[in-house]
């Protein structure tokens, strides 16, 4: 196992590459999720209290 992580002496370069790529992907997914929650919540707050739009969906 430690041989695997050593990557034949190139572990530093290999894992800094894979690590930063993983962090970038996870950070993007979390950012997109947070933005989605925020925009839906903001749209909810815009709706008048007690008003329920008809559930037609897709009709403008």
């Amino acid at each position, binding site marked *: 196992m430690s041989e*695997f992580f050593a*990557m*034949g*002496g*190139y572990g530093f*370069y*290999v894992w*800094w*590459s*894979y690590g*930063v*790529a993983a962090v*970038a*992907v996870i950070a*993007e*997914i979390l*950012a*997109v*999720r947070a*933005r*989605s929650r*925020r*925009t*839906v919540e*903001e*749209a*909810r707050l*815009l*709706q008048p*209290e*007690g*008003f*329920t*739009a*008809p*559930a*037609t*969906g*897709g*009709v*403008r």
Partner: protein
Amino acid sequence: MNLFKYSSPATFYPLAGKMIPWFAIAAAILAAIGLYVGLIVAPTDAQQGEAYRIIFIHVPTAWMSMFIYVVMAFWSALALGFNTRLSAMMAQSLAPTGAIMTFVALWTGAFWGRPTWGTYWAWDARMTSELILLFLYFGIIALRNAIEDTRRADRACAVLTLVGVVNIPIIYFSVHWWNSLHQGATVSLTRAPKMASMMLTGMAIMALAAWFYTIAVSFARVRSIMIERERDAGWVAALPEVRHG
């Protein structure tokens, strides 16, 4: 089937919502297989030892960095030419993912260059043009944030994107046009590949994973963009997650 039906945000929003989990699952499975093939199955490179394994991240992200830009330019041209709302939103949605792919391609390139060429960075044609691509993505995102009016921002970003597209062939052909530290194409349609088949397989699977990831994450982001832009529209009020009660 009328494809134009899906070109309106009101119909594309729920469609994208249904497709995202499938693309995300496909991306996750492909990435798991690709990492297994790349890190465990693929043989050690005769010249570079294990350092070459950076290729499984570097090449797919570098491809995506260019491909996403071309797709953005396509949507930008549509948005400029036909004034279609969804195409401008798709262009906007792709920019951050393109920037991230470009950053990862540059980063992994540096960490691959150090053990193989002895340097993290050189002002070489391939690397410099890829760095310009990163600045183009940043510039497009910054331009959008700087313009209050959405329609004007769409047009300005579309023009900048289309001007910047000249950089893509420069990146692609840079290793042929200039004497470059960067190696030539590893995979070519006209020549037999210069690498072991398991290396190639791992790279192809990781590239597919990057494709599906990009589709999933840009669809998820474009859904937020649709709501941000059209929060007063009836279709937003009618969404199940937005309706009260």
